[in-house]
């Protein structure tokens, strides 16, 4: 269901009111990410550009590394999808780093490396690394062991 222009205006107003009640934090980013499909549905209509301008400004002011620090990877993945749609290269990098860090903390080394590799445009090299059986995160005890 695509919202009509009036429905959209009212939904966007409700979003801004809900965001205004939470000046900082990852809630804002997640709320923006949840709203994105409604705006994306109107992206081909140039008369919706002012919403995109305003939405992009709200995203930019909400995005700070400290707001992403406590986000679980699945929420960061949603924010990353949004950053890839509307974010600047610096904003995309901020989210990429936060997601890579979150996967690394969760012990998902391969996923963490893949996020970095996607950001650097080195996906093929990263895939090759993992398919060759190389351990991207060898245990510390294995290093320097005499052969």
């Amino acid at each position, binding site marked *: 269901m695509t919202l009509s222009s009036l429905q959209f205006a009212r939904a966007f107003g409700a979003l801004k009111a809900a965001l205004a009640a939470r*000046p900082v934090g990852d809630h804002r980013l997640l709320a923006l990410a949840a709203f994105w499909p409604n705006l994306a549905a109107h992206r081909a209509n140039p*008369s919706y550009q002012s919403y995109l301008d305003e939405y992009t400004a709200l995203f930019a002011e909400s995005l700070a590394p400290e707001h992403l620090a406590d986000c679980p990877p699945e929420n960061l993945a949603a924010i990353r999808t949004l950053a890839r749609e509307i974010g600047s290269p610096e904003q995309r990098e901020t989210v990429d780093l936060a997601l890579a860090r979150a996967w690394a903390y969760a012990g998902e080394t391969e996923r963490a490396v893949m996020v970095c590799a996607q950001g650097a445009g080195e996906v093929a090299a990263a895939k090759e690394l993992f398919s060759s059986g190389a351990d991207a995160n060898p245990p510390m005890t294995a290093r320097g062991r005499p052969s």
Partner: protein
Amino acid sequence: MHVNVTDLLLFLDGKLSGDRRDVVQGHLAECEFCREFLEGLQDTQVVGESDREPIPPPAMQLRDRIYNEALRGRVIPMTPMAPAAPPQEYLLAADGRPEERPAVECLREYFSESPEMVLRVMRSAPDRRQWVQLVTDDPRQAAHVLLRLPDIQKELLTDSAGRADLSDVADADIEALKWEVKLPDVSFTLDELAYDPDRTEYGGETVLESSRADRVRLRFEGKTEGKLVTLEFLNLVGIDEKDALRVYVIEGTEAHALEAPQAGRASFRLSGSPKSLSIRLFKA
């Protein structure tokens, strides 16, 4: 992750299917943010929109054509939209300082329900720019229409994206003014403007006709000092000689406001080498 707006609207209408409804209900029980968002939607929802039966495309085209025909020349008063009230919230020290105002913000919003359109007065802080944006479901309806400010006797023509610059309007006025949208009485479009850019001296003419049998003759004269275009209005349905007309010719991103046509004629010089021209006539 929060619930998306479409699901919340369907939930409000009681139209969400079993499993999804349970998921949304479960999320709302836990998530204060989505509860507040839902309350905001409840206050402002346009009731009954999702009850409509889908219309088959040919019928939709016919409906749009008849509807747009009926809208010709209409003046649409815009009603101020009440901003959604922010939920009461008590900030804790751990929430940090409130953010500064966003770089781009909407100062005021106005709407019309029939035809459905939204007018947004926008400000961009970094470049101190103000503009107004007309939002419509069909972008053609927002393009090249007049936005009127009757309080200060001002008119602005929107561009192809439904935007108009507000730099000429004083800051103090912007938030207090009444707005009207004036749709064109007659529209013509010349899709293929053919001329030889290497020739300086040439001439040619073409007649454009609207679906309502309005007719205009365009005469092109290429000269060393520029390209002169003369419009001669041959037939304008519902407009007589006594009516004062505003004529705009849109050349790419530039709009030429023509003097009131004398004896049904008006002329202007093309600024560039456009591939198409749009002509809009507004009865004053």
